[in-house]
């Protein structure tokens, strides 16, 4: 489906009266969390990690997508989930429940485009074993509008390149089927890629190279200049794992791999999340299995290491970075604090982007 067609349709619905982010404490980040009671919640965090709001979730969430303007977030069930909830972050009310269409399930990430008029969600067409982006009319009650092929298998995260309508999709390469849960069905032939989509057409599809075929491209971050950072998860023997972070810019030749020899083994072959620093000068990949994050200068040079047990979430904060972990820790450029919850995998920045 062509974007122009549904954007025209969406424009007919004028601005919905809804709270803006400023009305819910102007959060800088969203994160899913597990509370001490065992209940789950989506929490808005201020720039220094203070709690702006908290709304309950019915089950463990994965990532959330923050609407660029309205105080509204979409929380995804963990894969292979078939629902996502559109949450009013002021009242905690569930505004909509998105059901994956027949033959599809969500992977747990989504991104807004068209100034918040359309939500794109990563999904599995599991009969075909192909990735799709589901398109939802975010101005019209989140009606399903159609879908685009992602140009690969197992699309996990999708991000919009800042200031553009181009979507970068991490086609992780791993085929799964709901009948077999998270079992990986195609490791012998997996071929992950990073695809750039505009109006449903792939403008560029890039792979990491033959030696990196077993590195599933899973999570993404985009810098203002369009450089995309990829966090990787190694599917081979842990001891054979290579870089877990790659950078690519459209038209910029082969992706660049970043690794830190001193701590590469401690990452245990698993990159959890990825983010550029606010000033764009550094890029971080988290390693929850080893309790560390590698922070690389984009221009080159040795990595800095941040250590926290179960560290996973990372997002730009000020000029620098913020991190969250499963013990409740929040590290930000101004200091650190600990919340009484276990932070889930991702720290999602809030803002027009």
């Amino acid at each position, binding site marked *: 489906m062509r974007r122009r067609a549904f954007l025209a349709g969406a424009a007919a619905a004028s601005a919905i009266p809804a709270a803006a982010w400023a009305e819910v404490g102007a959060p800088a980040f969203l994160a899913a969390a597990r509370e001490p009671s065992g209940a789950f919640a989506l929490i808005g965090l201020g720039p220094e990690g203070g709690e702006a709001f908290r709304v309950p979730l019915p089950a463990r969430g*994965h990532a959330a997508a923050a609407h660029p303007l309205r105080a509204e977030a979409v929380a995804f069930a963990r894969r292979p989930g078939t629902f996502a909830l559109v949450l009013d972050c002021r009242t905690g009310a569930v505004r909509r429940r998105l059901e994956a269409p027949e033959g599809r399930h969500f992977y747990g990430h989504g991104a807004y485009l068209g100034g918040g008029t359309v939500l794109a969600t990563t999904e599995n067409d599991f009969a075909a074993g192909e990735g799709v982006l589901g398109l939802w009319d975010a101005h019209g009650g989140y009606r399903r509008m159609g879908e685009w092929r992602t140009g690969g298998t197992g699309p996990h995260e999708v991000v919009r390149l800042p200031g553009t309508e181009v979507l970068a999709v991490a086609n992780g390469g791993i085929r799964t089927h709901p009948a077999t849960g998270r079992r990986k069905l195609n490791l012998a032939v997996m071929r992950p890629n990073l695809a750039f989509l505009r109006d449903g057409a792939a403008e560029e599809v890039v792979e990491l190279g033959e030696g990196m075929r077993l590195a599933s491209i899973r999570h993404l971050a985009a810098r203002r200049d369009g450089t995309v950072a990829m966090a990787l998860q190694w599917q081979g023997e842990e001891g054979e794992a290579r870089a877990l972070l790659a950078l690519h810019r459209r038209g910029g030749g082969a992706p660049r791999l970043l690794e830190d020899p001193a701590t590469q083994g401690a990452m245990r072959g698993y990159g959890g999340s990825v983010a550029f620093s606010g000033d764009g000068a550094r890029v971080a990949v988290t390693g929850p299995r080893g*309790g560390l994050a590698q922070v690389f200068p984009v221009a080159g040079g040795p990595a800095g290491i941040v*250590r926290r047990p179960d*560290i996973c979430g990372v997002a730009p904060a000020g000029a620098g970075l913020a991190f969250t972990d*499963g013990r409740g820790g929040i590290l930000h450029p101004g200091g650190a604090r600990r919340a009484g919850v276990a932070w889930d995998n991702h720290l999602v920045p809030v803002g027009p982007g």
Partner: protein
Amino acid sequence: MRLALALALLAAPAAPAPADVDAALEGHVLPRIAALADAAEALSDAAAEGCEGLEGPFRDAAEAWAGASHLTLGPLEEGGRLRIVHFWPDGRDATARGLRLLREGGEGAWTPEGIARASAAARGLAGLERLIFEDGGEPCALTAALAADLAALTGAVDAGWDGFAALMRAAGEPGNARFLAPGEAEAALYTALVGGLEFTAEQRLGRPLGTFDAPRPLRAEMRRSERSLPNVAAALRALRELAALLADAPETDAAFARAIALADGLEDPALAGVAEPSERLRVEALQTAVREVWRTAEEEIGAALDVPAGFNALDGD
């Protein structure tokens, strides 16, 4: 990262730490790390005198390492030191390749700076074991240079623990970004305990055991110096010491006693017997006993300390 370092330096050293963190630091961590540095220095002193008779000092250093190798938090995790002190497992024999390059570089390259630039696989105990037990300590100057490098490295680890111990004691203090709550320092020591048990069961014993059809005796840790089994016993004794300081855990202690008795009863220092059915059974029994310690420690000590399992580490998404 600069931020983390700056925050670490802000940490006030005079915080009242939980008694067991202090006890574990004073009664286990700091003496074990100091013993490692001392043993490496003794090996270096001996190697500076000549390259004969280094077997004893090497084995002493290996004993000290087996008693400290689980203390991977803090200074040992900086700059890849853990892998430099002992590069193992080494499935691709990177030690042989690294040593060959060092030999080819010649004596002019065996300066402290030259050794520091060499492959981690050739440095530390892995390279020294080959030189001492396969080549009679030759070339002497290389053995001495590697031993001096190891002494400097472990000395830096020992010195670094002053600051890191202060950081652990200041868990939960404002500005302490590494340990955000008092219980986190304890939790880190518990993680070291469990990690040490896992490494002993699955690597030190698991690698040479391989499978029944494909045993891998040549993969045993420090088989050349016949330290494979003694390292298991030394690690178990050190881990038992740590466990007792972390919590009152009688079942864990009893499980340790059973595993240590099995290790002491074996007479197969290089674990070469994994390839022979009857001897193999005894090594398998030891591995089972170490796994039992591991499971018991998780149930008894993990529960006592209320340490959460990795929420994200185990998520796999």
